[in-house]
């Protein structure tokens, strides 16, 4: 009896191993053959995505018979707010693409900032597709955590999204990510009952002070305080080479214009109504807050009937001239991580393209109010009439598309902002003091590349 069992076990084991080898061989030849077909198939799939769903299904069915994509799990990291939305859309995608049926997916809530950090820490354990703010792009490319956009998708991405978004997803000449939103900019939410005229910063502060309410502006963030520096005409540019490494910089903060901007920040920070912050739910007793579209629901909840938004105000500088607050126009992107399996990469590419497509951007706007980067969706009536988005659009006319900045820039800018808030730089500082601080800032930023 024992012997018999042993024999059976042995036999199965041997068959198992043989089958193992066999299938592997078959699989590898299959992939070889498939590779040649893959390109055409993918382009077919992409054009299909743009066409009506019914057609897409038909094409997809046709593709199904020629390419075996194998099996696997695709992990997606997106912000908490769109987890359910993303799941729903991936279901739709999977249903439309039976050729990818071997793949399962999992969507996890990882905020965009965290996602980039995690991807850099351990790319192998990171998500296959992840959302991130565009300022992380160079860092991700340098760390080898981003795959370039599939060649067959490049044209579609470039033509369908606004130029700023495409530029933001590009390092060197390579397109590295799929733009999802063009709303990563900031503008002013305010309480109509407190602030009647949001057109000048001085006016806003005066009205808020009179009402004993707070105005939030996160001036210790390198993202928000460009509003002042860009507003007075300062430049902050880094050039990067094709590997994502920084190769040079052009920073003109240490100038008369920079001093005007810095002095305005100091004046603002000196107001009793000023609060440093940009999160609606962490703000109390709010008259106005400089924030982005992602907080529009929270802002509506907070202000209720008095909810209003506008572009950022103008201010009168220490030199007597009037400047419009500027800032960054930024974008949220969807990245695909490098894969050691081409089939999986193809599936990820197709999925990322879909999740950044016109159809999904439209739906995402409707679901959570994220401003689209897709030109057609931007032109749609609903988006155009959105209060927050139109305030943003108005503001975007004065902003500078966000480029790539080294990590040190952000912490230096926080240092500069904190020096203003803590009073290291204050109203009594002479222009020379301010110039010296800005010179130090510029030097450190230039050295950071």
């Amino acid at each position, binding site marked *: 009896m024992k012997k018999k069992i042993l024999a059976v076990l042995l036999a199965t084991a041997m068959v198992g191993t043989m089958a193992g080898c066999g299938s592997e061989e078959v699989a590898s030849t299959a992939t070889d053959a498939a590779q040649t077909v893959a390109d055409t198939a993918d382009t077919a799939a992409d054009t299909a995505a743009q066409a009506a769903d019914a057609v897409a299904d038909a094409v997809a069915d046709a593709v199904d018979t020629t390419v075996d994509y194998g099996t696997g799990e695709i992990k997606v*990291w997106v*912000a*908490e*707010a769109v987890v359910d939305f993303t799941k729903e859309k991936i279901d739709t995608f999977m249903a439309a693409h039976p050729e990818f049926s071997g793949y399962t997916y999992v969507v*996890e*809530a*990882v*905020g965009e*900032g*965290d*996602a980039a950090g*995690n991807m850099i*820490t*351990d790319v192998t*354990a990171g*998500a296959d597709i992840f959302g991130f703010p565009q300022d992380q792009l160079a860092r991700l490319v340098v760390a080898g955590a981003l795959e370039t956009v599939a060649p067959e998708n490049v044209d579609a991405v470039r033509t369908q999204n606004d130029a700023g978004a495409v530029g933001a997803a590009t390092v060197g000449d390579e397109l590295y990510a799929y733009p999802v939103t063009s709303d990563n900019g900031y503008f002013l939410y305010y309480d109509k009952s407190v602030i009647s005229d949001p057109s000048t910063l001085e006016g806003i502060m005066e009205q808020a002070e009179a009402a004993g309410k707070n105005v939030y502006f996160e001036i210790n963030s390198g993202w928000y305080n460009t509003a002042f520096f860009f507003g007075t005409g300062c430049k902050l540019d880094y050039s990067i080479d094709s590997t994502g490494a920084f190769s040079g910089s052009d920073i003109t903060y240490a100038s008369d214009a920079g001093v005007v901007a810095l002095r305005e920040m100091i004046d603002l920070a000196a107001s009793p109504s000023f609060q440093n912050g*940009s*999160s*609606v*739910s*962490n*703000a*109390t*007793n709010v008259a106005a807050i400089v924030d982005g579209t*992602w*907080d529009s*629901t*929270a802002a509506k*909840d*907070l202000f209720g009937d008095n909810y209003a938004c506008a572009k950022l105000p103008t201010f009168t500088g220490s030199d007597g001239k009037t400047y419009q607050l500027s800032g960054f126009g930024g974008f949220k992107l969807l990245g695909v991580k490098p894969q050691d399996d081409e089939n999986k990469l193809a599936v990820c590419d197709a999925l990322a393209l879909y999740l950044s497509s016109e159809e999904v951007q439209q739906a995402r706007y409707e679901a959570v109010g994220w401003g689209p980067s897709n030109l057609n969706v931007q032109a749609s009536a609903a988006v155009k009439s959105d209060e927050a988005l139109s305030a943003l659009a108005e503001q975007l006319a004065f902003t500078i598309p966000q480029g790539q900045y080294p990590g040190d820039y952000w912490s230096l800018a926080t240092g500069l902002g904190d020096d203003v808030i803590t009073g290291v730089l204050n109203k009594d500082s002479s222009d020379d003091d301010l110039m010296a601080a800005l010179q130090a800032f510029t030097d450190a930023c230039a050295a950071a590349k």
Partner: protein
Amino acid sequence: MAKNTSTSSMKQKRAVGNAIAYLVLIAISIVWLFPFVGLVLQSFRSYATEYGGMVEYFIPKQFSLDNYKFILSGESNYLLWYRNTVIIAIFVSLFQTIIVLCVSYALSRMRFKGRTFLMRFWLILGMFPGFLAMICLYFLLKALGLTQAGAVPGLILVGIASSGMGYYVCKGYFDTIPKSLDEAARIDGASRARIFFTMTLPMSKPIIIYTALVAFMAPWCDYVFASYVAFGHDTSYNVAVGLTRWVWTNDYQGFFTRFCAGGVLVAIPVVILFMCLQRYYVEGVTGGAVKG
């Protein structure tokens, strides 16, 4: 007569002294309880009418159970985080106690080659900041498949693995148990193991409870390493990771009162347990402080 006045003035003095002492104690109590009262009040603030963000007033305008309903319903993974934390805390507490007892007994009662070296070596190891090892631990756990989905057993493993180094207090306690008892038992032919299990352990109830209590409380606060090991895997978070994200990440607007409610629910069992076992805790810290 003279004596009488002096005692009455003494009494008066004492009464005044006591009154001041009471005032100071009441002031201290207010300062100490204020944040907790605030936390509890905020957790009962109505989400529907007052939103869940920060507010500038102390007492909510309208009380409701909105926040508790939210965290106890399936809308967030709070219950899962809570379960993870309880599991981690129980296992860490159990095994850590066992390990600490073993190490302490060996170091207190046995004399073997390398004993002083081992104690000195561990003392020196303890001076390295823990974060240094964090990334390395992460990859070790990853090699064992104990990150992300497996973060809970991973955290248990890490929590237990190095617990031997925390033997000081327990060894100090064992040192106070007279050695003559051991020696008498050994003359009667009892083995070391027998002495350990049948004599030393039954006499060590306070220190066992102290060790278990301290070990049980630690995982509730573990934010840094726990979030690192979970690596974005929402269902593997513990309460500390899950709840701090509600406060720190901008993705969660209006979660402040929910954080308060979650915090209250975390505090309740720990506080109750602590209050019940406070006596042992005092014995432990006092002993530990004396013996270093």
